[in-house]
């Protein structure tokens, strides 16, 4: 069954601004469900969802699982270790076997760019990309955007800078696609060795120095510095990275305005972001996590064929939304 988003959510590149807005709007009523004493609605009752995680993940996996459970779906978690994957089964065989058990959706996290699309092209079930290599992480992009929208309202013309390792970041790519489609002005800032060589062609501003980025931006999305990049020789040390590119209180204090601070987590405190910034008054890092569940509920709901206008009704505790589409 395909809804207004198509069969799968593989990335924000392939979505229109309309579709992104639809997901964000649909997420709004779902936010409230998580605030209830009984955090459950029957919108996806009877649906079976497999969370197929070939890469370690705590936050994203748990967030998806909560989203699925709060929509009353039946979920199974499969991780790469302790499954047939570790016996050398190919991705396509794993997927086909799961599908043979009559599942409705697959949430996949994989270290290879394109893995989600690979799967989506080969199975009937809806596929949601929970991060593929260094390609995209669309639900993270959506929750970042939802968090920005909560504070800014319309994002048109808003200035958002993504800081850090853009080269290897799927979060950066999804943010760039999503934000530009909503009319925001997007910049990136980081050492050139961690920016794609073709960054000029992305249609974003580029800051070589974080001070300039802070002067320009209304919000900073600070990416995690992956330590394996240092052994690969992209930057000399975490210490120098913090000194040159770290988001510190002192740097932010020099800005003319308050700057909203986002971080997709998990954070390296004292490396890309200092603790007094992460825990400071303008940090929305925990709001991002809360919004993550709502955005994922919206995506699951819409891909299952739920009608956006019925999200309110679904939230209301009836199973009408689901019955309507059947």
């Amino acid at each position, binding site marked *: 069954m395909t809804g207004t988003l198509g069969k799968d959510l593989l990335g924000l*590149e392939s979505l229109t601004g309309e579709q992104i807005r639809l997901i964000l709007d649909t997420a709004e009523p779902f936010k409230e469900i998580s605030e209830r004493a009984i955090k459950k609605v029957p919108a996806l009752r009877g649906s079976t969802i497999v969370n197929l995680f070939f890469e370690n993940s705590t936050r994203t996996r748990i967030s998806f699982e909560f989203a699925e459970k709060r929509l009353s779906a039946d979920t199974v978690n499969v991780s790469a270790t302790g499954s047939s994957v570790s016996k050398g089964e*190919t991705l396509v065989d794993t997927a086909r076997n799961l599908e043979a058990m009559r599942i409705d959706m697959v949430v996949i996290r994989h270290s290879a*760019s*394109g893995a989600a699309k690979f799967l989506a092209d080969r199975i009937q079930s809806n596929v949601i990309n929970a991060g593929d290599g*260094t390609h995209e992480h669309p639900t993270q992009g959506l929750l970042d955007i939802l968090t920005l929208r909560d504070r800014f309202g319309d994002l048109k013309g808003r200035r958002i800078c993504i800081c850090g390792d853009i080269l290897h970041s*799927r979060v950066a790519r999804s943010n760039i696609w999503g934000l530009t489609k909503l009319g925001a002005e997007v910049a990136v800032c980081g050492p050139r060795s961690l920016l794609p060589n073709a960054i000029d062609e992305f249609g974003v501003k580029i800051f070589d120095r974080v001070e300039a980025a802070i002067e320009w931006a209304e919000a900073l999305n600070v990416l995690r510095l992956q330590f394996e990049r240092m052994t690969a020789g992209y930057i000399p040390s975490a210490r120098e990275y913090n000194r040159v590119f770290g988001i510190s209180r002192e740097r932010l204090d020099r800005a003319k305005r308050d700057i909203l601070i986002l971080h997709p987590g998990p954070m390296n405190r004292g490396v890309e972001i200092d603790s007094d910034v992460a825990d400071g008054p303008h940090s929305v890092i925990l709001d991002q996590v809360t919004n993550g569940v709502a955005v994922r509920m919206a995506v699951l709901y819409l891909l299952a064929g739920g009608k956006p206008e019925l999200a309110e009704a679904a939230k209301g505790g009836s199973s009408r939304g689901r019955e309507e589409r059947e």
Partner: protein
Amino acid sequence: MKPLFLRGGTLIDPSRRLNAVGDLLVADGVIAASGRGINAPDDAEVIDCGGLIVSPGFIDVHCHLREPGREDVETIATGAKAAAAGGFTAVCAMPNTDPVTDNQAAVGFIVRQAQRAQAARVYPIGAISLGQEGKVLAEFGEMVGAGAVAVSDDGKPVVSAQLMRTALEYARTFRIPVIDHCEEPTLSAGGSMNEGIVSAQLGLKGIPAEAEEIMVIRDILLARLSGGHVHLAHMSTKGSVELIRWGKDRGINVTAEVCPHHLSLTQERVRGYETNAKMNPPLRTEKDCEALRQAVKDGTIDVIATDHAPHHYDEKEREFADAPNGIVGLETALAVIVTNLVEKGYIGFPDLVERMSCTPARVFNLPGGSLKRGAPADITVFDAKARWTVDASQFASKGRNTPYNGMTLVGRAACTIVAGSVVYRSGMPVRGREGGGTRRQTKRAKG
């Protein structure tokens, strides 16, 4: 052997500046006569070539036939038949087999398997270094004695400049080219496509054009230093073309080849993580394609070669970064060149024959490349106007990994003749020069 009489085709032979309608008589495995007003002997087998082009046989100086080691994806027999079906009368087989073709016995094995195949000729290329490990020179002299026509560590670059220099010097005794796969390995490490906007958007590690160009200029300078003949495999960038031009202008003994895919497809083709658009060197940009087409036109690039690289379906049916590099090319090369270079006005058919037959023969010092009297009767007859849709499942090759599958192209081999024997005729099953013993393999290849 019955004489062959090819009647009424357009004879194109750049080696003699010939481009005219005429007949061609083949007897005793050599070309006996050509032109107008030749009488067909009574016992001759007559092939009507009206509306077709008759040219010296195409020679592919770069293919991977996988035997020994990966007979599941190609054998010398299936590769030689695929070559014949694509209009090639001879191919040169790269030594990255398992075990590596790095000694006279291994070279001799390929020669024998090729004789058994009775299709296109197969000339072995020996390794530059033992095991292609880039350390110790292989025995060029003995390999040449056993039938090798060139040396290469293809698939891998020769990383050590000193080893490359020595290879170029040592090869001079045997008058063979040293072929290099130009790739600076620290720059290309982990890369799976061209570095650029597409790799950045797809989140794939890129291979910059400079990884190739650094080695191109290194090899040209080493050719100057050593006086040897360096042949640069599968050129893919505009910068490489400029560097080769620089070398040739200075009289350095450098020759170069380009593959049909680098002349016709760009990195855009990788979008969607299309593993049949994954090869090394990778598909580049439109600017590179255009520079390469111009280089074929002006002769900076000497040779069109396929880099035919069969892979198993399962190996390509996977995550992009983990899929192997390479595509099959023997059965689409002619059509891709006609469609993208001839039909679009870059070159004429005489240029096509020059780059696919005459120059390969000259550069690699091989028989063929001419229709003159007494030359070996290696002949390609092709239909320059045939419009056909590529169906990989019908390939004579065991490999089906092609980005051209389903595409409609123009130009197709009609008849391939090796040493005076018809080894391929369109519409007829692919068979060996003497038939027999090949049916089963053909059938298996299709299964």
